[in-house]
């Protein structure tokens, strides 16, 4: 045939699904938008500024880094896969709207340059860049990061601690707010992206529908954290407030489920999110602080162990109960022999 030159070779399979990394990451950005929008509605133009500064610095850092690697602008544009935009958005979302302009900027630069690019870019980082960005800001600008402005429905602005820190400090669920207010985020102090649980939930449902995340991942994390809190305080009344306050929803839906820094198979995943929930509740009780980001950071570092210990066995392997039975049989037969 005359036009055989156009034919290419490839290894099997020759057909591929339409999903690409870029495509998935764009879905995550879309899922984050409702929460960002609600942040802007609750906290005004200040929130928008924080988001803009954070995103721009995150993307700029990546571009500058790649320019230093002597990549052409065209390659950089082709390679752009929205991951830095997600990091920028997430950093902004876990900051109070009142922070100075340089806080989101420095955090985003640190997150992208040190945590992501230094390790080799997308897919190579060992911890979630956004988490480290938040912790960096929290460590460096502690006071700024722990005062929150709340615009009450009557228009007055109140500065103060979050609902969660009050609860943790006083060990009581007594609050001026109803649960539905916490859910919607009205009159609730907090970081600009984490107050409206409804918006985060909508984003999460979008991710589940688009098959980006498994619904069991955030569910296990949130439920285990709530139950553990209730257990630690010995009162089931703590279940709802402890999951509806603080950054648990944001962390569970968007940060802990980051592909790169979570286990790669289902058994390890379930164990991972369960441990994450228990650790978060435990640390909250121990430190009286919001520790979702620290819990995720610690667990990120333990991911290789989860992958190594819990992994699926090939199709057709002996059933697990048989493996256990054989193990005990051997154990006992050895003991018997020794006794003899």
């Amino acid at each position, binding site marked *: 045939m005359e036009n055989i030159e156009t034919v290419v070779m490839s290894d099997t399979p020759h057909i591929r*699904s339409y999903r690409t990394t870029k495509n998935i990451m764009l879905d995550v950005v879309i899922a984050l938008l409702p929460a960002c929008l609600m942040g802007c509605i609750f906290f005004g133009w200040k929130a928008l500024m924080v988001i803009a500064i954070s995103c721009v610095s995150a993307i700029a850092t990546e571009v500058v880094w790649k320019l230093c690697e002597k990549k052409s602008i065209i390659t950089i544009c082709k390679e752009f896969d929205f991951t830095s935009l997600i990091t920028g958005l997430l950093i902004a979302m876990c900051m109070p709207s009142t922070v100075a302009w340089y806080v989101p900027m420095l955090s985003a630069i640190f997150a992208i340059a040190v945590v992501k690019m230094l390790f080799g870019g997308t897919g190579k980082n060992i911890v979630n860049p956004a988490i480290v960005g938040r912790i960096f800001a929290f460590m460096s600008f502690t006071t700024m990061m722990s005062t929150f402005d709340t615009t009450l429905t009557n228009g007055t602005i109140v500065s103060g601690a979050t609902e969660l820190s009050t609860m943790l400090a006083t060990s009581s669920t007594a609050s001026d707010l109803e649960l539905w207010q916490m859910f919607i985020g009205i009159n609730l102090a907090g970081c600009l992206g984490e107050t409206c649980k409804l918006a985060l939930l909508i984003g999460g449902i979008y991710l589940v529908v688009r098959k980006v995340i498994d619904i069991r991942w955030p569910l296990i994390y949130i439920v285990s954290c709530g139950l553990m809190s209730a257990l630690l305080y010995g009162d089931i009344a703590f279940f709802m407030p402890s999951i509806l306050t603080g950054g648990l929803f944001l962390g569970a839906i968007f940060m802990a489920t980051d592909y790169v820094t979570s286990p790669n198979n289902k058994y390890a995943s379930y164990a991972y999110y369960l441990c994450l929930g228990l650790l978060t509740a435990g640390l909250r009780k121990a430190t009286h602080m919001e520790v979702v980001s620290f819990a995720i950071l610690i667990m990120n570092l333990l991911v290789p162990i989860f992958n190594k210990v819990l992994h699926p066995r090939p199709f057709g392997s002996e059933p697990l109960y048989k493996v256990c039975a054989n193990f005990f049989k051997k154990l006992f037969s050895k003991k018997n022999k020794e006794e003899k």
Partner: protein
Amino acid sequence: MLEKAKLFLRGAHIPDKKNLSKDIPIEEMPAPPILAISLAQHIGKPATPIVNVGDRVLQGQLIGQSSGFISANIYSSVSGTVIGIEKRPNVSGAKVDHIIIENDNKYENVVLEPLADREPQTIKNRIAEAGIVGMGGAGFPTVVKLSPQTKVDTLIINGAECEPYLTCDYRVMKERPQDLLQGIRLLAKAVGVSKIIMGIEKNKPDMIEFFAKESDITVVALKKAYPMGSEKHLIYCCTGRKVPVGKLPADAGCVVQNIATALATYEAVELNKPLYERYMTCSGESLYQPRNLLVKIGTRYDDILNFCKGFKKDTAMLVSGGPMMGPAMLSTDIYTTKTSSGFLALSTKEVSVENPTNCINCGKCAQVCPMHLLPMQIDFYAQAGDFDSAESVGGVMNCISCGCCAYVCPAKRALVQSITLAKGQIMAKRRAAQAAQQQGGKK
């Protein structure tokens, strides 16, 4: 009888594109003037040529003699003159011996001796004599599969046809159901089992309904998923048994045979016709006329392409077999074999030629892997050259190379390539260790 299938949760859901050729009746393609019949169409030793250059051969005459237990006879598919025995590339690019025959268009035919009885051993001998091999793609001599070392109680007929695009098995089921049924019963007799299960995917509802009417055959309606037609998964879905790791289907008490193989058995036993032609699907969005063809073995792909009126300008890839497991062809100067089940011309829209990016550890490959392996780990270790870890962590030797992992990979990584590399390296290492052990034993 109709039975429910066992649940199969893994595997990928791939648009099957069977509508391109599903409703086109089978057509016999006239033999081209020159054919080249490969002597290595099966797994195992290549056949030994028993004709010389210049000899006149008849259609259905033995030209390649089976050269061992795992080998198969080769028959001439036309009458004519042998004009050469030379090395030519096969589909995967390796050069193997081909017998080249010039067609005299007379189609003078010889058949095998009619069988005296239908005893299991007679049928088995005939299957071996007619050169029948597994026609699904592997090309394993059928008679070896029919003589298992362990006790078997079930014959499973693979009517899943899970590869996208391919429809030739469906057409055979639709157009020659009675012949097919006879072939299936002969196979069951040869193995000595009374239980026959036919696994058919739910995208062929008319066939499920038709075969469920037969009283001696149990039809299992399989979920439409790839790779449903893989032996191990077919056995699991049809009987609930699992083939133990590293064992053969016979260890689960099952023998699996393909639709085309069953039909070839019928033709060999009842019509005394050796295997020299087969059904084949020619499809793909880039092909002007998708077709289901009856093709003489040894036909050049170029002639098939001309018969289907050629391909469109936007052709990106030519594939022999299905798009998931069939190799891509760089030239059409290649000849069909007993295992060529399809010929696809895929357009730029259908194939993916994107460059791989970093693995983002999404775990989608592990989610779909029908063998419950960890392809991303295998890829990671194979790229790093650590093949021992690829085996111990990823379990690479259990891979059936179905390609589900690479299909779903959002980073478009060449996972199957890494797996093939790791498998090859591990096999080479094992062979070397074995050779060293044997040498040590001699000393």
